[in-house]
């Protein structure tokens, strides 16, 4: 049996096994590969740095557990970035599967690293509201109007953090972490374009190319693309989080997929040449 025939008849479970081992190995034994901060990530950091200290910032976390490896590290780092600047963070979720996850991430960061901060005073999780783009537009007419209760069921009107918050004009910036619809595209189209709210976004790697036109036009002031973007953000902030650790595994996985593409084609070319001869 020739090598080409061997690979052609290769059971795909061997490919699964190789992929599994390549992902597992660097997670157990980190390779500490060098990371460089790309310009969209540097712009993200610069934009968040430009927010006046102590401002109230809107952060929309639009994802569910399927996006944990990419979205959660971005959320953690962005939240730390804002809290380090003494910003008051108002969090919303537009994905029905996301509120529990976002609440867990926020609680963990605040409880472990900022124990002095008070819920409802320094940060609040307004939770989920059904309606996608309609909620975004509704928030433009009044944030409290759109979210009369927070995630924990408390009245938002009585919260100190919500005092003085009317609509999007109350925020210097929107930080959006999103893994699909509704997400960054809808925030740009419904809110940035209409209410002129400056915004930065963290998105999945697979959807990042879609947002480069918005980045180039200035509608997005910065962009984190996938786990790589999250890892670069961690590096820019001097953190070593789960995205940085995950990049070693992703590196090997990407190289393996590239190897599979090349090998698959070499096998096909060999087969066609033989059939032609």
């Amino acid at each position, binding site marked *: 049996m020739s090598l080409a025939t061997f690979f052609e008849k290769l059971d*795909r479970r061997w490919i699964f096994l190789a992929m599994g081992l390549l992902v597992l190995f660097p997670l157990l034994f980190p390779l500490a590969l060098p990371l460089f901060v790309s310009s969209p990530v540097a712009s993200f950091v610069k934009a968040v740095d430009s927010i006046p200290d102590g401002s109230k910032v809107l952060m929309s976390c639009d994802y569910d557990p399927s996006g944990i490896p990419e979205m959660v590290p971005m959320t953690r780092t962005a939240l730390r970035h804002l809290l380090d600047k003494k910003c008051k963070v108002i969090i919303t979720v537009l994905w029905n599967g996301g509120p529990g996850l976002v609440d867990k991430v926020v609680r963990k960061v605040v409880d472990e690293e900022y124990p002095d901060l008070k819920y409802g005073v320094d940060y609040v999780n307004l939770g989920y509201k*059904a309606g996608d783009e309609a909620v975004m537009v*509704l928030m433009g007419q009044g944030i409290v109007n759109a979210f009369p209760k927070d995630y*924990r069921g408390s009245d938002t009107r009585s919260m100190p953090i919500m005092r003085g918050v009317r609509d999007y004009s109350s925020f210097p910036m929107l930080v959006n972490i999103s893994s699909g619809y509704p997400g960054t595209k809808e925030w740009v189209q419904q809110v940035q374009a209409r209410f002129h709210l400056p915004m930065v976004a963290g998105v999945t790697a697979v959807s990042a190319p879609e947002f480069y036109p918005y980045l180039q036009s200035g509608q997005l002031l910065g962009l984190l693309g996938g786990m790589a973007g999250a890892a670069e953000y961690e590096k820019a902030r001097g953190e070593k989080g789960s995205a940085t650790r995950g990049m070693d595994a992703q590196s090997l996985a990407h190289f393996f997929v590239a190897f599979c593409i090349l090998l698959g084609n070499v096998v096909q070319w060999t087969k066609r040449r033989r059939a032609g001869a």
Partner: protein
Amino acid sequence: MKRELPLFLTAVIGIFMILSFFVPHQLVSVPADFLQQCAVIMVAFGYVLGGANVLRVNFDGIYKQKPGWIYKIVLVVALIATVVVGAVEGPGFLNPGTRSKWIYDNIYSNMSATMFALLAFFIASAAFRAFRIRTAEAGLLAVAALIVMLGRVPLSNALTGWLPEWARLQTVQEWIMEFPQNAAKRAILMGAALGVMATGLRVILGLERSYLSGED
């Protein structure tokens, strides 16, 4: 009347919502806000309707013992159990320590993440078996895809770090993303936006009626 009334409502509300985008006067903005709130409430009702529909379809499948009916039982039991537990716990059902939170953290969250994680394995298998370079265009696509895929990860930094900066994979990848990819994406976005506008106009004018009952 069964068809004319929805068409009339669609046309009036559609024109009104477009108007509200350009006219900030309260004569327009107040009713527009009301309509937005109605939309939010209707979406919430959509979840109730969706849940009822899932139950109807799956009860039917179980009753008639259609293929895979045993899995439909799992779905129905899981759906009802989750809703009942949430309803019993009332407001704050997702706070730490509740049973709903346990279901979310230990069942839903893990299963959802697992489904997505399986993609890596199937992408590798598909890359080996399905990504065939048969034409020059496919070759160009493959080269661009390989550069971007490899240039996005730090291993490429380690491998091409000795090259001059313009020749490194990360630099080439950034150039592809910022120029050729961006130009193509922008054209697609503009085309899609024009398509959406045309479809919206067709809906408002009553030319597009498929949303009513499946007719064209």
